[in-house]
């Protein structure tokens, strides 16, 4: 009986539209709230209508605590957004996650997802997590008009060019960068994005992997040089609006505001694609593409020009039921992901989602970069074990507060590294 149900569940999404009703319900724990939740609900609607499965979604921003508690107490949800690939690996090795190889149609998945995404969701060769949506990181946002007026380029060839230009501007009394790294309990993550992108574009994806896997010490010349490179920007009060106190105390969601002041107080803002939603909300009159745009952080070494950093929400399965299987399958389809894309809530890792679904030229460009990048890596801090990740965030805060302490900060990160990867 049960087997039959599963068979139906697997056939249903395959055939996409026709299928018998499954009924029942599936519980999903996630982080999506506000506009994301509205999009999610819209996305769920056709699935519920078609399968008769009721999707019970619970949102919490304290995902770590809720998921850890429920999993440890033996009462996990059917499906859950996982806090990070690092956490996913922990859960998978404890045997808490269902091997999706026997749940999803792998042939179909391989057709619509690049191998890179499948690898990211796999632990020890088993697929345990899939990405319903993604973000592109490492973008420099600007206001085309004010950039032009200030005589700054919107396409610097290299990181050094960008830095030289920024310094030249600063010499004329113009502040080039607006940075804010405050994010409540996760303060500092903005800085980890900076460092990861500089690392990637200096040393390439292979070294990058060594780094997040804990094989490359924080005190190594490579990692240290990356902090020093970023330090040339973040440690120079002439280059950053408001200096270190402002960087530390400004929320990442408001850090772009100086760019759009009249006259502008800064010109460049480094952030992932999701910030488009924040800009749109703060300044509803601004048009994406005309009044604000982005370029990818230029490479430090030219050979890594075509590399990109991504991040995304991972969904894993804790209980295999016909309903949870059907819903997880639905989440991976182009049909479902088009909702995220159209709602402006992220990019789709599914390459079958047509570019025309993206709401504006900017998100189309981001999607293009995402699909055309030759070297894609995932957010390194998310790949690290939880402890390393948190220590990394905190290290960023300490570094911004006092860049002279770099050696000490890196030594401490190495102490954590020895502890965090050991287990």
């Amino acid at each position, binding site marked *: 009986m049960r087997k039959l149900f599963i068979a139906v569940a697997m056939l249903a999404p395959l055939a996409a539209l026709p299928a018998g009703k499954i009924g029942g319900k599936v*519980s999903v*724990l996630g*982080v*999506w*709230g*506000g*506009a*994301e*939740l509205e999009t999610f609900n819209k996305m769920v609607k056709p699935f519920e209508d078609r399968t008769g499965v009721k999707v*019970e*979604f*619970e*949102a*919490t*921003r*304290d995902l770590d*605590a*809720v998921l850890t*508690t*429920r999993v*440890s*107490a*033996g*009462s996990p*949800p059917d499906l859950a957004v996982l806090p990070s690939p690092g956490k996913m690996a922990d859960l998978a090795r404890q045997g808490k996650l269902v091997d999706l190889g026997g749940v999803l149609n792998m042939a179909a998945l391989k057709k619509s997802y690049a191998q890179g995404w499948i690898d990211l969701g796999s632990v020890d060769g088993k697929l345990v997590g899939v990405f319903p949506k993604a973000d592109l990181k490492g973008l420099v946002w600007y206001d085309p008009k004010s950039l032009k007026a200030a005589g700054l380029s919107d396409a610097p060839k290299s990181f050094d060019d960008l830095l030289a230009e920024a310094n030249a501007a600063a010499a004329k009394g113009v502040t080039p960068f607006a940075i804010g790294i405050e*994010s*409540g309990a996760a303060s500092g993550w903005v800085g980890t994005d900076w460092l990861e992108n500089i690392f990637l574009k200096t040393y390439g994806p292979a070294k990058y992997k060594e780094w997040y896997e804990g094989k490359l010490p924080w005190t190594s010349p490579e990692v240290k040089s990356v902090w020093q490179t970023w330090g040339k920007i973040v440690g120079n009060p002439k280059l950053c609006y408001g200096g270190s106190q402002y960087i530390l105390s400004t*929320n990442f*969601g*408001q850090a772009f*505001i100086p760019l759009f002041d009249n006259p502008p107080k800064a010109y460049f803002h480094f952030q992932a694609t*999701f910030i488009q*939603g*924040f800009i749109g*909300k*703060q*300044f*509803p009159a601004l048009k994406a593409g005309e009044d604000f745009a982005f370029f990818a952080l230029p490479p430090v070494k030219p050979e890594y020009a075509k590399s990109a950093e991504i991040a995304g*929400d991972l969904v894993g399965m804790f209980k295999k039921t016909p309903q949870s299987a059907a819903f997880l399958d639905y989440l991976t389809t182009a049909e479902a992901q088009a909702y995220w894309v159209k709602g402006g809530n992220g990019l789709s890792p599914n390459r079958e989602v047509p570019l025309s679904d993206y709401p504006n030229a900017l998100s189309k460009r981001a999607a293009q970069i995402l699909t055309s990048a030759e070297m894609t890596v995932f957010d390194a801090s998310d790949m690290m074990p939880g402890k390393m990740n948190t220590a990394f965030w905190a290290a960023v805060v300490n570094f911004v507060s006092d860049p002279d302490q770099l050696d000490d900060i890196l030594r401490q990160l190495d102490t954590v590294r020895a502890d965090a990867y050991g287990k």
Partner: protein
Amino acid sequence: MSTAAPAALAPPRRGLEAVAARVAARGLLHAVLVGLSLLWLLPTVGLFVSSLRPAQQIATSGWWKALSTPFSFTLENYGYVLSQANMGRSFLNSLIIAIPSTVMPILVAAFAAYAFSWMRFPGRNVLFLVVVGLLVVPLQVTLIPVLRMFVATGISGTVPAVWIAHSAYGLPFAIYLLRSFMDELPVEMMESAALEGASHAQIFFKLVLPTSVPAVASLVIFQFMWVWNDLLVALIYLAGSPAVQPMTVTISSMVNSYGGGWEYLTAAAFISMMLPLVVFFALQRYFVRGILAGSVKG
């Protein structure tokens, strides 16, 4: 007040000096009270004004700017919060969770406090110290074992599970506070009641509970508020049953995964604050009843 100094040297003008001193004292009294009240209200007023402003302006200018022209107030944040599909349902859920979660621990604690205060038994003080010691237990360490227990008994995800959990968490403080009040009850009052042949149950309900009204009232306020504002316990023990979620859970899901939409929290804060404030004002008058002073001394 310049007359105060010479007045101090001249005994015949004592009356005047006393008046001046009293005026000064009253002035100081008002200054301290009004000053502290304003200081304490300021953050909340700021939040309230912010909740009536468009989100864009909250981030770019201080809230006091809204108080000068050109005015630009909006009810948009409140509209959004109230339009949430399950706001009414979750308000009701919050009530259903909060009331028994307030009554149960206070009654249970009152029994225990009465026993600790007015009954003699071996191990009384040790047991009481254990109760006080339990105040320090961080809620977080209880989550996993308790949830496991709820799962095993099949009541996880139900409202009674949350009642029981809140009752247990509220007990140490309630027992501690009530015992310290009951300890102060006059021995003569208790003895005369016992001499008249009243049972412990009668003494408890007719004498002890009514005389402890100020302490009970303050406990009701705090326990109600803690439960009303609780997010963590509800999130964990009600997991898997969105239909019984309280307001705090609904409110928290208005913020997206990046923290965007926090402006709705400003409005939600005031909406959810109303009921605790009503409880506070409703119970305030019970503090003023000096039962101990009037009825006991004869």
